[in-house]
């Protein structure tokens, strides 16, 4: 493979109901940083039905030098084959050296399919991306072995170098490149048989789901809470601070909170201003999902709980007594 003929970073945008997802902006921001080291440009490819200049402007704001839009009625909703076909064709034509995809349920379905078709490597769920300045390799670091180790992966002899990154891992940073907007609407050729699945219905969960990834303050429950009834105090505390309640896998498995509020390796990656770990022991899988929080406050009655090694402030006491005391103390403070 002629490695030198590949140049530039390509971000595959993720659109849901015509809204470009935050993960895309985060990847563009990170790409801008990587592009400086590679001395290349950042492109983005967005697939949808009626994407326009407004979407392009937003993506440019976070670092896209060039915006490619593929509009087609068969691209309105995500489907593995139609998306893979357009993206693989685009990559073969434009030869980027790096392709980044958001590690959402969509990206994690799409990226492996693309990498297999392009016969190149893919590193999933990276928590850090960097450039080896000696040889321009993309250094892709990810947790493995249940988050117990960090592995840095390279893809030295195949192009593009592909990686997925979970939403929330990188920060979304607006950049002012002060350049004219470059939009290309690409020609889309799809056959009816490319739609090899039939989406019968799409159902949005009725209950209003609160997104823990967007919360500034998270009050997170672990097994140490003891029983579901004790979640009430955590909810009161979260409300008082304008935050949300989340939890560890153990608490989700116990049915005390819903899966979409799970923090950790198999849940979500969060980086709030304050993270309260309430009765959470701090399994490495959990730490992987919250260690980037600005302030971590851990409450646990077990002094050997690993969570204390990752906390800015640790209180060894019964969490079910502390939370009501804290609610009271905060109320006194506010009045």
């Amino acid at each position, binding site marked *: 493979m002629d490695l030198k003929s590949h140049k530039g970073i390509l971000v595959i945008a993720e659109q849901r109901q015509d809204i470009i997802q935050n993960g895309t902006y985060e990847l563009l921001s990170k790409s801008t940083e990587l592009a400086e080291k590679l001395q290349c440009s950042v492109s983005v490819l967005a697939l949808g039905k009626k994407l326009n200049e407004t979407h392009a402007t937003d993506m440019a704001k976070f670092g896209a030098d060039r915006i490619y839009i593929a509009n087609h009625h068969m691209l309105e909703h995500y489907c593995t084959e139609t998306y893979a076909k357009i993206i693989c064709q685009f990559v073969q034509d434009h030869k980027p050296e790096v392709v980044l995809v958001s590690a959402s349920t969509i990206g994690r379905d799409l990226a492996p399919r693309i990498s297999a078709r392009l016969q190149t490597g893919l590193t999933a769920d990276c928590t850090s991306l960097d450039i080896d300045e000696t040889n321009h390799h993309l250094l892709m670091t990810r947790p493995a072995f249940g988050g117990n180790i960090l592995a840095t992966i390279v893809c030295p002899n195949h192009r593009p170098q592909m990686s997925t990154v979970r939403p929330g891992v990188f920060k979304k940073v607006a950049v002012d490149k002060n350049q004219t907007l470059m939009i290309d609407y690409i020609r889309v050729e799809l056959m009816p048989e490319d739609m090899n699945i039939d989406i019968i219905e799409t159902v949005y969960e009725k209950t209003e789901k609160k997104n823990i990834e967007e919360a500034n303050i998270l009050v997170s429950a672990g097994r140490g809470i003891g029983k579901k009834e004790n979640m009430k105090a955590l909810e009161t505390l979260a409300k008082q601070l304008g935050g949300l309640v989340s939890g560890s896998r153990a608490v989700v498995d116990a049915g005390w909170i819903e899966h979409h509020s799970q923090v950790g390796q198999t849940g979500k990656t969060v980086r709030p201003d304050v993270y309260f770990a309430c009765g959470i022991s701090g399994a490495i899988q959990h730490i992987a999902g919250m260690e980037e929080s600005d302030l971590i406050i851990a409450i646990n009655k077990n002094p050997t709980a690993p969570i204390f090694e990752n906390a800015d402030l640790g*209180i060894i006491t019964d969490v079910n007594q502390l939370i009501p005391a804290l609610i009271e103390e905060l109320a006194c403070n506010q009045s």
Partner: protein
Amino acid sequence: MNIIVCIKQVPDTTEVRIDQKTGTLIRDGVPSIINPDDKSGIEAALTLKEQYGAYVTLLSMGPDQAENALAEGLAMGADRAVLLSDRAFAGSDTWATSLALAYAIKKLKYDLIICGRQAIDGDTAQVGPQIAEHLSLPQVSYVTDIKKEDDHLTVKKVYEDFYQNIRVKMPCMLTVLKEMNDPRYMTVGRIFSAYHDNMIEKWTIKDIELDSALTGLKASPTQVKKIQTKGGKTAGKVFETDAREGARLIVEKLKEKFVI
């Protein structure tokens, strides 16, 4: 209907600890299990077998000891088990692993391939979709329900905040989530026959007619450059105290950081 379930034997990562002195993984005494998502894949296949009739083949790639995972699956009720084991496969990344599995699948009959969403030791979620690509099959990942009508399946695919009901024609590949079911226990009679009747077929690279240049470490596009264990974040302050004093310390900290 012929169903192939791809399974992986994994160390129970919840039991893995770090040696604080050397910073290395303590693997000794860590039990090996069937990867949880894959185990639910076996259960899903056995449920389909009961509902519609099916022949369920388990396929795994790994060292000889992965036989134990296959034996467990047979004891749950699978009909056949194939272990793909050869030194030539060593060091394969997901691309090379999925290619070898795809070659093995080509030697078997199939209408449906079920893989677990992801393995708990690697968490990549790549092998299933990559098998589907190598075999040019339609895929649906993140599945939590499967129903069959003639040569089609209707499956429930879950996303972060919505789900879809999708109809897909067989042959196809699905990846399933452990949340979809509670895998059944092994039965005593089946445990006995799984372990004693030599039911597990061992295949090497010759059996699947794969070019050795296309497998193993050398054929893998990705390479591990560096491994490190994660250290603790900060040496924060830890206080052993009563609830009232603890609450006061927290409020102080929140004020210090201008949260309140």
